[in-house]
């Protein structure tokens, strides 16, 4: 009886969020189309700097760029809906194949980064909250501040010099072995740690002041149970949301990190295609990253509904 009720509220919740996500996807589709077409004369960029007016006219004709924008949009959107993201001008293969090929690398790198970030940020955030105002707390917050100030590409280069060249512990580029994921994963994690840590800390400080924590203490529960069961679950919601956003940043931010460490993922593909005016690929990667963001936000909402029963209705 209870389970049926639980499942039905959960399902209606998921359907409502899915519907909203579909609307956001449509918006992103329109915007990513608009941005590529507003960024200048596509035919001229494709033809390159040495092209004649006649060349440009031919390209315009061949790619159908002379048609009204609305017609071009529905043509493109129709193909996207069928899973056809167009062909790369550079590699002369379907874009969807290019992304599919490189996606596992980027996902593996993003997840590595996320796991490293959580392993560092959550315990430090919890400890800082439990010792609020102490020297330990201030030290941890100082690390967070430094973390926010250090740019990822610079940290990446420093790590390459130290662990790759001087100590020779880790490979300086590529992902031929799992060791290749460590440095780029850490660089990605580094950008996410300060936000995750701050949010864990502030959420835990608030939760630890709550009346229900006093009740838990009055029940004689152990400190571990009080902190990890009663406080953390209530502090977790904003952390889950920001984790999803940070994973999105990491996957998007992998454009820089992947090019520093020469990791052949989606980010590296994006960097290559931007520098070489391969517009179908740029457009597809933008769209693809946007969809990942939306999916992550949806996932975060669903996890929050699991964490807080009050959100399920």
């Amino acid at each position: 009886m209870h389970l049926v009720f639980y499942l039905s509220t959960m399902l209606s919740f998921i359907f409502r969020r899915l519907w909203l996500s579909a609307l956001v996807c449509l918006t992103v589709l329109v915007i990513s189309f608009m941005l590529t077409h507003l960024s200048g004369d596509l035919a001229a960029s494709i033809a390159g700097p040495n092209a004649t007016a006649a060349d440009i006219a031919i390209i315009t004709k061949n790619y159908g760029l002379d048609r009204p924008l609305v017609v071009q949009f529905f043509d493109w959107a129709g193909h996207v809906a069928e899973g056809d993201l167009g062909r790369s001008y550079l590699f002369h293969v379907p874009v969807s194949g290019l992304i599919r090929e490189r996606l596992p690398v980027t996902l593996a790198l993003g997840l590595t980064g996320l796991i490293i970030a959580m392993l560092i940020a959550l315990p430090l955030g919890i400890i800082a909250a439990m010792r609020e105002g102490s020297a330990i707390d201030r030290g941890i917050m100082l690390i967070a501040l430094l973390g926010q100030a250090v740019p990822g590409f610079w940290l990446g280069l420093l790590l390459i010099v130290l662990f790759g060249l001087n100590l020779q512990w880790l490979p300086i580029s590529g992902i031929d072995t799992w060791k290749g994921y460590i440095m780029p994963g850490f660089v990605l994690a580094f950008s996410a740690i300060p936000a995750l840590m701050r949010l864990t800390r502030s959420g835990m400080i608030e939760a630890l002041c709550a009346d229900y924590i006093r009740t838990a203490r009055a029940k004689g529960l152990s400190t571990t149970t009080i902190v990890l069961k009663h406080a953390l679950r209530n502090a977790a919601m904003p952390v889950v949301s920001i984790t999803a956003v940070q994973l999105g940043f990491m996957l998007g931010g992998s454009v820089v990190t992947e090019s520093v460490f020469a990791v052949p993922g989606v980010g590296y593909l994006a960097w290559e295609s931007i520098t070489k005016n391969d517009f179908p690929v740029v457009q597809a990667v933008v769209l693809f990253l946007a969809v990942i963001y939306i999916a992550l936000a949806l996932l975060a909402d669903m996890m929050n509904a699991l964490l807080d029963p009050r959100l399920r209705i």
Partner: protein
Amino acid sequence: MAPVLSIANLRVSFPRMEAVRGVSLTLRGGETHCLVGESGCGKSISALSVMNLLPRSAVRSADHIRFHEHDLLAMSERQMAWLRGDKIAMIFQEPMTSLNPAYTIGSQMAEVLERHRRASRRQALDRAAELLARVGITAPGMRLAQYPHQLSGGLRQRMMIATALMCDPEVLIADEPTTALDVTVQSQVLRLLRKLQQEMGLALLLITHDFGIVARMAEHVSVMYAGEVVESGPVEQIIKAPTHPYTRGLLNCIPVPGMTKPGEPLGSIPGGVPHIGRGFLGCGFRERCPMAARECAEPVHLHDAGEDHFYRCRLPPDWKLDASP
């Protein structure tokens, strides 16, 4: 009856104020002892001191706080945690915020027994269902699977009481358990508390600001004002012959059956509770007292007013307010 809980000369101070100034009280087995006074008089702080649940900024000291022969002051936080919820349980004023919104009623009740008795989840839930039925909650099996936000305030407070009783405690401290409830529900919850206290032989330390509740519930009462117990004794005797000017004032504010004449307006005490800083001397009530004199600014000692009946005032027990100025 031997005292179950005894507090001697308890002092609690915060950085900017003295919240409790030398409170002593004794709670006997199977008796209800009311701690009564206005908000801010230190009654909740005194109760939290017993449980060692004071905020971090508070400093606690006392000659002793004893549970049977164990000195609670000498106990480590770990030892205290084993006592809390097992031998000494406590319930709070706000049933809304005192429950964790993220866990079911069943989970929040069961964890007490799992912790203190190493019970299995199954056993603990059975005990929880039994106690929910005992505090008058219908369909306990369904309630166990519900979350706090799905229950009314009255149900939540009943559930808090049931949770406190999971381990058959000897002492129950109830901090204004009915203040946040509707008047009709208040009366039901009080009746329930009284019934459980008598059936289970609990020593109940009940904190309230309402002398009506004292008259209904308690055998013994300690009246607190500005961090001190100003009068303490058997309820019947104190209602019949209050001695401290503050107790008289408080009793004047409420209708007492058989004491208040119909048609006579109820009284009030002018002024407010003073801020007690470090080094405050004398009677805390003197600014609002109709009988204040110069010697009230000097330390006041306890006086006997009958068997088991003490008060902290310079006046004789049978003082009368001089009507003619």
